[in-house]
């Protein structure tokens, strides 16, 4: 079984359920899911499309309300009933979305996106020069030049640059938990490794819990400590990455692993 985990639980769910639709035509997107994410871990939630990963992510972010069940944040029941409480909660949990092309408001300039983050961290009263210094630092972290970004709109950047800007945003916000919802699936293979590198670097820098949502089990194995396998709204298998990937118990997990495209015809998992 799993080795005992030391750190405190930071985000956990009990019987979390989301049902869409009314009357007879209902779809159960997430079906009584229990989990406990611990501080400082990198967690992967792996599943095919339609398995309820994104719905679960939105519930964790507090963007949609669960039909049933509770989310516990740092051991206490999460309370996001008022707008003020939600804002407080969002200072602790942030997200990177799947599609960078639709994640930005096309009417806002890049400066606005970054300034919003500084303001959210309580930097509204800072002098202009200090704000620019912070933004330059954040852009520098993901190897973007702030001087080139200013007065540009997000859609003038490439997909990879937009996703890096998203990471710069998180760098400014320094949340306790980052939920990355397939951050690399819309990016070409070359930029993918760069984005992952920046994410891991950011995690080391800020010391946050990283929840990684992906359909790519190879990627999950590469980055995470703990892996949850999701099928039809349920967690079918969970445990440390080594245990789940190298010694899968469930047939669904085995199938997922066997579906990973291999460069060589024979890919012996035991040597990885």
């Amino acid at each position, binding site marked *: 079984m799993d080795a005992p985990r030391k750190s405190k639980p930071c985000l956990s769910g009990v019987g979390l359920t989301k049902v869409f639709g009314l009357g007879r035509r209902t779809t159960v997107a997430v079906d009584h899911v229990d989990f406990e994410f611990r501080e400082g871990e990198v967690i992967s939630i792996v599943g095919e499309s339609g398995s309820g990963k994104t719905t679960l992510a939105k519930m964790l*972010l507090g963007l949609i309300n669960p039909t049933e069940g509770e989310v516990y944040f740092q051991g206490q029941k999460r309370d996001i009933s008022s707008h003020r409480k*939600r804002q407080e909660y969002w200072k602790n949990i942030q997200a990177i979305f799947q599609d960078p092309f*639709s994640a930005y408001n096309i009417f806002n300039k890049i400066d606005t996106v970054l300034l919003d983050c500084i303001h959210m961290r309580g930097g509204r009263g800072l002098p202009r020069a200090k704000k620019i210094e912070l933004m330059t630092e954040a852009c520098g972290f993901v190897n973007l030049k702030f001087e080139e970004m200013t007065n540009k709109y997000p859609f003038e950047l490439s997909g990879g640059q937009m996703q890096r800007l998203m990471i710069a945003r998180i760098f400014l916000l320094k949340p306790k938990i980052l939920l990355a919802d397939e951050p690399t699936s819309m990016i070409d293979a070359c930029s993918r490794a760069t984005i992952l590198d920046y994410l891991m670097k950011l995690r080391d820098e800020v010391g946050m819990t990283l929840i990684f949502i992906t359909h790519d089990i190879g990627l999950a194995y590469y980055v995470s400590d703990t892996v949850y396998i999701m099928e039809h709204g349920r967690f079918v298998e969970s445990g440390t990455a080594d245990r789940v990937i190298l010694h899968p118990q469930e047939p669904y997990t085995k199938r997922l692993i066997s579906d990973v495209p291999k460069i060589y015809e024979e890919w012996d998992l035991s040597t990885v």
Partner: protein
Amino acid sequence: MKHTLRQVARSGKFMAGFIIFVAILLIVIIYPLLVPDPPLQIIAQGTFFPPGIYVNTYDSINAPTTYTLHLDDAAAKRVASKLSQENRTEMKNWLVAAGLPADEIDTADTEQLLNQWGSHYDPRLQIPGMTLAKSRAYQRLNASIQGLLSTEGAIIASRAADTGALQAGREVKQTDYVNIREVANVRFLPLGTDNFGRDVLTELVRATGVSLQIGLVAGIIATLIGLTLGLAAGYIGGLLDDFTMFITNLFTVIPTFVLLILISFSIGQDKRGAFTIATVIGLTAWPWTARSVRAQVISLRNRDHVNLSKLSGHSIPHIILNDILPYVASYVVMAFILQISSGILQEAGLAILGLGPRTTEVPTLGLMMNWAMIYQAHILEKWWAYLPVLMTIALITFSMNLMNTGLDQVFNPALRD
């Protein structure tokens, strides 16, 4: 943004509609500067004069403008009461402009004023700084003074040069002709006169202006209400959405025009100004905008950029104004244009039933149709009383729909041909 504007300017349909609309607007603005007559002034006795050039019958006799006035007291008082203070001031203005010292002119002394006018007024005198339209207006004033004097029993005669005694006036024969340039009071009526003897063209231009204003006010009111309710109901949802949609559905189920008729009727004839009507139209036209804006907002509110804005800690008003409104703005502009054109049509529909603005103040396109219908212009084949009005309504609506289709093609690339 700049890119979109350039695309809008390149859209043929939009530009065609825009040019027609601007042309109408320019006519409405410039025409009153050239023809300063009040639009509801009755210029001729009798109904429905067909289009053409009209010469004042009295002017065509063209008596030399030399008057000797011998008014007995009663007649003098009658003339004095008929000559309005405005006209007196106008006469004084002209005389001063023609070089008479201002202190010699007393607008209260009718006889002296008329004498001075008679001896000094010359329609061919060029006064610097006076527009053609203004000098035409003075020619008409002169004609009306002559008419006043002749009907009040003034003697128009030429004075003998040596003795100063009055001689008989000029005899007008069958073979007499007058060059039209020498006649002071010539009216060109391209669209004839209406049932009250008013110039249809002047009336039509003013009516177009008023109708456009009514459409604009109605459009602004309807769009503002519809936009606010649509944004709030669509984004906030829940009970507010249910309640708003309930009211919107009520308004949609009741035919708007019936509602309009009932409201206009209950306001009463006296209180119905042009802008009251516009407000009433605006207050009944919003459900359509509210429904479509709500539908757009519902599809927008779960987009990632809205989620990102929420995660950035923005308040609900901030998100609605910055992350939702700009995305529906193009659609709202198109809806606004359609609301203006439907406002104009609604006003015309109401007024033709006799429920439009009260008739004493301003003409509107609908009122002109109403007058033409009441006085049976369509049965008497007086086409100039209603056809130009119809064409104007059609042209305005057509130009607005063209603009709307053009914008639609720019904003929805799938519709481009």
